[in-house]
């Protein structure tokens, strides 16, 4: 009798979380799982039973429904994978912690640096009220400017960057306190 190896993976790409089970059959792999985009929206992934052939830099994945030539590599942050030029990045999450609902993204209460670069202008100060589309700060990277705008009515709670400062991708620059309307509740 063959012993079956079964592994579980949780991957996150943007708002979507994939909970996957990988089974190693004698010469094939079987992948099943679900995709969760909201706590209520869970869709099964069409199960895939495929043979794998290594053909560096690709892995050929062959199944009755077709063949895909993919390339993938993982580092300490997650895994990059591409198929015919379409490239995706997945973050590895510990099983059970990755559901979008458990990590609520509060409606833009934090303005984070969308890229590594330099702050060239800060347009707001704590206590100031801002309207959607209002420019909060201006960043520069690779000689291009990028404006950070408010997406909703809010009050500026905290400004944690200053002009001329170099900031990293994802660094919190400004904290906003959105005005929550009754309907939105």
């Amino acid at each position: 009798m063959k012993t079956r190896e079964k592994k579980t993976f949780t991957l996150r790409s943007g708002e979507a979380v994939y909970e996957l089970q990988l089974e190693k059959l004698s010469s094939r792999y079987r992948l099943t799982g679900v995709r969760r985009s909201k706590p209520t929206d869970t869709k099964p992934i069409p199960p895939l039973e495929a043979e794998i052939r290594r053909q560096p830099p690709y892995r050929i994945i062959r199944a009755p429904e077709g063949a895909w030539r993919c390339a993938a590599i993982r580092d300490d942050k997650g895994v990059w994978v591409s198929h015919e030029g379409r490239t995706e990045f997945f973050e590895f999450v510990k099983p059970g912690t990755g559901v979008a609902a458990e990590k609520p993204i509060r409606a833009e209460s934090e303005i984070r640096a969308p890229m590594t670069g330099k702050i060239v202008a800060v347009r707001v100060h704590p206590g100031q009220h801002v309207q959607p589309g209002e420019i909060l700060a201006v960043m520069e990277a690779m000689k291009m400017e990028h404006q950070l705008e408010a997406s909703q009515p809010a009050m500026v709670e905290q400004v944690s960057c200053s002009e001329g400062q170099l900031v990293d991708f994802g660094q919190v620059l400004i904290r906003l306190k959105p005005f929550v309307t009754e309907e939105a509740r």
Partner: protein
Amino acid sequence: MGSERFCVGARAKVKSTKMFKKVLVANRGEIALRIFRTLKDLGIKTVAVYSEADANAPHVWAADEAFLIGAPPPRESYLNIAKILEAARKSDAEAIHPGYGFLSENPEFAEAVQRAGLVFVGPPPQAMRALGDKAEARARAQKIGVPVVPGTGAYDSVEELQAEAKRLGMPLLLKAAAGGGGKGMRRVADVSELMEAIVSAQREVQAAFGDGRMIAEKWIEPARHIEIQIMGDRHGNVVALGERECSLQRRHQKIIEEAPSTAVRQELRQQLQEAACKLAQAVHYTNAGTVEFLLAPDGSFYFLEVNARLQVEHPITELVTGLDLVKLQIESAAGEKLRINQEAITLRGHAIEARLYAEDPKRQFLPASGKILKLHWPALPGLRIDSGICEDQTIDTHYDPLLAKCIAWAPDREQARRRLLAGLRETVLLGLVNNLGHLIELLESRPFGQGTTFTGTVETLAMEWASKSEEPLPPALLLAAVLADEHKNEKERRDERVASDRSCSPWARLGRWRNLEQP
């Protein structure tokens, strides 16, 4: 490559001039590597310069010699004239090729190179001044009867430009008076946005070129961006090498270019070429240059500006003319006569270039940074890759996010498009966000397939695609993800190779000894 037909055999007829023995390239990335390639073809020794951020960049190791010229910010390294000249002196280089961007269109640099007794591979400083400045170039074009887009003069003062721009009317386009590359370009649709746009654009321009003067031009829509490649020698000869269409742009920067244009017939080509050559001759232009035009739907064209340098998209011209533009540049700089005349230049087939950028098409093309973990280029007939990157290289935000160019040539446009698509689909670039998928989508799009591309096409398509729900991921991609190999850096890979070499030893292969004479 089968499509390159270099002019050979003509050399003996030209009075031999002194060819350089060593040339320094004051640039980085793919263009430095591209220039080294031709220099090697010509038997000329190569010198690289690099910043602290680029110590492991491919261009440093591709040259015969390399000199560290300063800290990562361009101002302290790739824009540092004194350091670059010092490297040239130390290496005994006789000429400096500036590539594109950085100091390539800076007449002070060209003059400093000449003062140091070296040759600048590019147009003479006075021609650069006359044409490199957009306002002055416009005036000159008008004088010789080349139509220009209605616009303002160049202003340093925000108030003056604002007043002039208001008189011109909206919508309009703000531009840097000096320099190109889309830096400082802003489309302004409404007067209320004008002030903010000018201030922001000026800051960008000041940082990029050290010159804050701006101009405003009337916005023409729908328009195609058509440019003519010119090449001149020091003996008064100028030839035009056909057009390139570069209408597919984002942030006013080109991403896909092709030659010839689907909108240019021979008669129009001749008109554009004549206008370009006339302008070049009026300022005694030499070396490579590009004259940019806007083409309106009714076939009328307007002069935009001259790029007094080699351009990013020069390979498509090389593929349809069979000429090596860098070789022509070097020969022109060395004082040689052009070996080709206008009649001898024929366009053959079709070429398309796609620019691979470290940027996120899903987030307004923001520059991305990261480490290249896996890289594979296609090797297909008719495909040329001008790359500036390698595996394990870290791409940071100090410099332009252009990583590489993928260029396809074929006898006709549709075949070239398919070749380029096949090449891009085979390309593997993992480790940082890039626009590979976006390039594929653009090449597959209906406007590109039909050849009806305008300067607003990329934006229109983006809006169309945004409303479409995203296609679900093929489960195979997920399977590949969970089976992915661990990234190993170069050292780890080397260690592994050594270990596997050891296991190749016949002693290891023999396995456990067994005594055959066991009773």
